[in-house]
């Protein structure tokens, strides 16, 4: 991908949104308030004390499928912004995306017979617990590890390294994909259930969002921490 087709620091923030309205959810996560007039991306990032380079990378990941972030553009000082963004993104999933899906699933199962209702409820609840665990592990173990590595030059958790996280970092979208196919193909037919279409639309959206989220973790966070670990040795 040629760099000049990507977003740049001198673009107006408002133009970024009209180029791809999905970026609104990034602003939502970071807490950037609307009403920014003609301000450029660089100006807004400075106002919110966020690395412009990182903000652009995240937006490029969301908007351009073939884009591969170049970690050499970031410094270790950007790490707190990255973990900050990932935490904010977790909050967004937990308070916006998943509750939406959960509510709709409640409405959908109300129309099912008791066996199918129990099946879908249990499947979703287990998935929900898995996601919570996944996020909690990152927030309670991985991010603090990175933060102490930055602060002290080494970590207090001697038995942990980012490669351990990398090995066990599973993609949490697999069961969502299963749920999608169960709803599309195997849930008994019904006469009128717009709710199923709505759920599927939501699942597709959150799935593609999760893919980008894990790309940020795998390609940006992990690579940057690996560099930090070797430079500390």
């Amino acid at each position: 991908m040629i760099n000049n087709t990507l977003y740049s620091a001198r673009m107006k923030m408002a133009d970024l949104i009209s180029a791809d309205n999905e970026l609104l959810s990034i602003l939502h996560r970071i807490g950037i308030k609307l009403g920014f007039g003609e301000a450029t991306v660089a100006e807004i990032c400075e106002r919110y004390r966020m690395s412009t380079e990182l903000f652009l990378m995240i937006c490029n990941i969301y908007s351009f499928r073939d884009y591969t972030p170049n970690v050499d553009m970031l410094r270790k000082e950007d790490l707190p912004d990255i973990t900050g963004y990932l935490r904010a993104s977790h909050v967004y999933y937990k308070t916006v995306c998943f509750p939406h899906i959960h509510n709709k699933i409640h409405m959908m199962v109300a129309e099912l017979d008791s066996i199918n209702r129990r099946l879908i409820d249990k499947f979703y609840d287990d998935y929900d617990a898995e996601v919570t665990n996944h996020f909690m592990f990152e927030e309670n173990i991985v991010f603090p590890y990175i933060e102490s590595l930055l602060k002290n030059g080494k970590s207090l958790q001697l038995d942990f390294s980012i490669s351990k996280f990398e090995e066990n970092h599973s993609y949490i979208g697999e069961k969502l994909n299963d749920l999608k196919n169960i709803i599309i193909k195997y849930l008994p037919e019904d006469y009128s259930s717009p709710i199923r279409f709505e759920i599927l639309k939501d699942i597709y959206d959150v799935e593609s969002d999760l893919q980008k989220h894990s790309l940020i973790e795998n390609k940006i966070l992990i690579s940057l921490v690996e560099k930090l670990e070797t430079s500390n040795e």
Partner: protein
Amino acid sequence: MNRHSKYKILLIEPSEIVALGFKEIISRSSDFEIMSTLANPTYYTNIKSRPDIVVINPAVVNYNERFDVRSFFCVNGDNVSIVALTNSGYEEGVMRLYDGCINIYDNAQRVIQKLRSAIEETLQNPKNEINELSVRERDILVAVAKGRTNKEIADEFNISVYTVISHRRNISRKLGINSVPGLTVYAIMNKLVDISDFN
């Protein structure tokens, strides 16, 4: 075979000697004709009309990339018979991907016979292979849903763990469901296992 036109064969074989010999055998048949010969499958997409049978040397297929022979040649729900052309034995898991297998030491009569039965098989069970689970796959799905490990399933059915994994991969591909909980939901919904087994 009640058909006026000949069945079209696409041959994918890197050895010119073998390819020419195969062509010679086909030229003597009244039911089949070679529409095109390729040294490897990469150029398949350039071929305008669809073959009825693809005869392919499995050695040109890269297993490491999990090349799915069937989904590669059966685009848009085309029904294409896929027949392997080999000079050695392949593992059961690999051969199950094909509708038939011709050995280079088969005589001309046997080659034609095998092509006929492959095409009949495909006509009788259109896309059956892709969509529905086989009896064996259904049995294995039930065992997976009940929480058995691959090793336990291998022992129960007297097959290798490798074969169990290959069955599971096929099951997941057909159903579009990968996780064990997802497979369990499918199995209960389709009454393959009873929900009371799970309290």
